[in-house]
């Protein structure tokens, strides 16, 4: 195949893939600013006429949406706190020390991702009821932490790999203990990357629906609430579009902000 032909093929493939991913997002975004009457109209105009916040307003005024949003934010905050507190030291250890079982540990981290969460659903619900964690935000945060940890560990590992060990050693020759060298040198330099890891964890928790649905009843997070509203109560179209849009936006913005770190993350894991 000639060079221009190959490039044209590549361009078409990229365009198709991008359309496949972006088209639903665009349609959802457009629909969530279309007034309710038009959503049910046929044929429906592509662009909202006129643009209207009515649909979004309807969604926010729906029962349980605001408390659930608050729940989601709280769970995400707990998850970030827990997974950074547990994951960052693990990532640091993986980046700095050669210890027995290091490779097995790395593999084990990825292996947890291969285990289907569905199988865990019933035992987890039973265990959480027994421990008094059922229908609590802490319970959901624990599960989200477990889900997020593999990513947190691998991201923080790649972040700390980017901080030369010699900087910490230099600090130690200048009077720091190991811990002080970490706190005064490695941590400040790693902070943007750690923030990226935290944000990634936020997206993961914000969008997680399965565990949240199974483990909560009254204290729903937003995805669990929407899932329930759509599945059990048959929510109207405008509710669905607005909810979809509201849940996508943070993830989109955040992925855009941290894609540099995600690339280095893959660079490290692929190698």
């Amino acid at each position, binding site marked *: 195949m000639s060079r221009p032909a190959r490039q044209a093929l590549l361009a078409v493939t990229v365009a198709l893939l991008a359309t496949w991913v972006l088209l639903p997002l665009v349609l959802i975004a457009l629909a969530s600013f279309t007034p309710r009457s038009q959503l049910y109209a046929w044929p429906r105009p592509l662009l909202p006429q006129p643009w209207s916040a009515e649909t979004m307003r309807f969604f926010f005024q729906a029962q349980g949406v605001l408390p659930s949003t608050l729940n989601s934010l709280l769970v995400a905050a707990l998850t970030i706190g827990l997974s950074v507190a547990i994951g960052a030291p693990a990532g640091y250890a993986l980046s700095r020390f050669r210890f027995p079982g290091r490779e097995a540990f790395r593999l084990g981290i990825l292996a947890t991702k291969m285990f289907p969460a569905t199988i865990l659903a019933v035992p987890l619900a039973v265990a959480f009821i027994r421990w008094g964690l059922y229908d609590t935000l802490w319970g959901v945060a624990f599960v989200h932490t477990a889900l997020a940890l593999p990513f947190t560990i691998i991201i923080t590992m790649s972040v700390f790999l980017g901080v030369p060990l010699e900087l910490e050693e*230099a600090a130690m020759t200048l009077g720091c203990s190991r811990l*002080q060298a970490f706190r005064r040198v490695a941590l400040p330099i790693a902070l943007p990357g750690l923030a990226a890891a935290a944000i990634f964890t936020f997206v993961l928790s914000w969008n997680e629906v399965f565990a949240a649905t199974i483990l909560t009843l009254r204290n729903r997070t937003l995805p669990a609430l929407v899932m329930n509203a759509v599945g059990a109560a048959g929510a109207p179209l405008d509710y669905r579009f607005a909810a979809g849009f509201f849940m996508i936006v943070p993830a989109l913005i955040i992925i855009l902000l941290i894609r540099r770190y995600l690339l280095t993350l893959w660079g490290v894991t692929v190698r």
Partner: protein
Amino acid sequence: MATIVLQRVRKQFGRVIAVDDVSLEIGDGEFVVLLGPSGCGKTTVLRCLAGLERVDGGRVFIGGRDVTDWPPARREIAMVFQSYAVFPHMTVFDNIAFGLRMRRLPAAEVRQRVEEGAALLQIDHLLDRYPAQLSGGQRQRVAVARAIVMRPQVLLMDEPLSNLDALLRLQMRAELKRLHGEVRSTTVYVTHDQVEALSLGERIAVMKDGRIVQCDTPARVYDTPVNQFVGGFIGNPPMNFLEAVLRREEGRQVVEVAGVRIPGNGPVPGDASGTVLLGIRPEHIAVTLEPVPDGIPARVLVLEPVGPQQLLTVEAGGAVLKVTTAVEFHAARGSRVWLRFDPARIRLMDAHSGQALPSG
């Protein structure tokens, strides 16, 4: 200021022995260079001194105190790293002040010492910059300033010039020497560059395979290498080696190269005889275009002008030798010349072990 004593220091990484029974005594205020090819263990010795590596055997003393189990922070050392290891998230001022602040010195004294150190390294106009805004040479100066403002007992430097370009390296080398004259910290300097070692060191410890092969003044390391390795590692171009025959004649030792007797060679103690290795430096060989009685016949391979002199490559007695000659010297490629070795500068070595034979 302090003395340093390494007593039979050993360090292993897995099965690799990086430092093998190294013992070394360094005097107060002395400048010692650890010189050797990459992987010889010189940096590991330095890191053991700094406390960044735990030794697997032996003891380390600084200023008479056994610091073997002390963390780096307690050892009153300062170190300049090959990569400079300047903190990217701090200004030049904060970088230089880092160690002083760790010692909780009052702010006024910190400022005064930082300014002094920066002036000494001519970076006082850069104090507000971040390392990313500096050139490699400037970062290097920050790293050195950060070390010397500590007024350390011991200053450790790990190939500090190897990341600089040639001209800057030359300039910084002279400056490090001047700094040592002013600061007088006991200094251990690691390098693989023999010119750096010769120019900076009061003593040079040549290392190979985790051991110190020879430790002596630059002049003695250069003139009387203890073995073939040292002779071949130091000098640019390095020492020439060729086979020679050692014979006893009327109670005197006689050296012959390619059947030509080298006159006036002093007596060699012991009864060594037979085939030996003769080492001679390029500048201790005289070349003539006419046959001379004790000249060793040779054939010209290449003649390279290298500025103040010329580098002549010849083939003689089955070996290829490098000879430095005056700029005026002319010889066509393939032509015959005759070499005369300066008998006083000849270094005889065992043909198998490469160890220098004891000379009179």
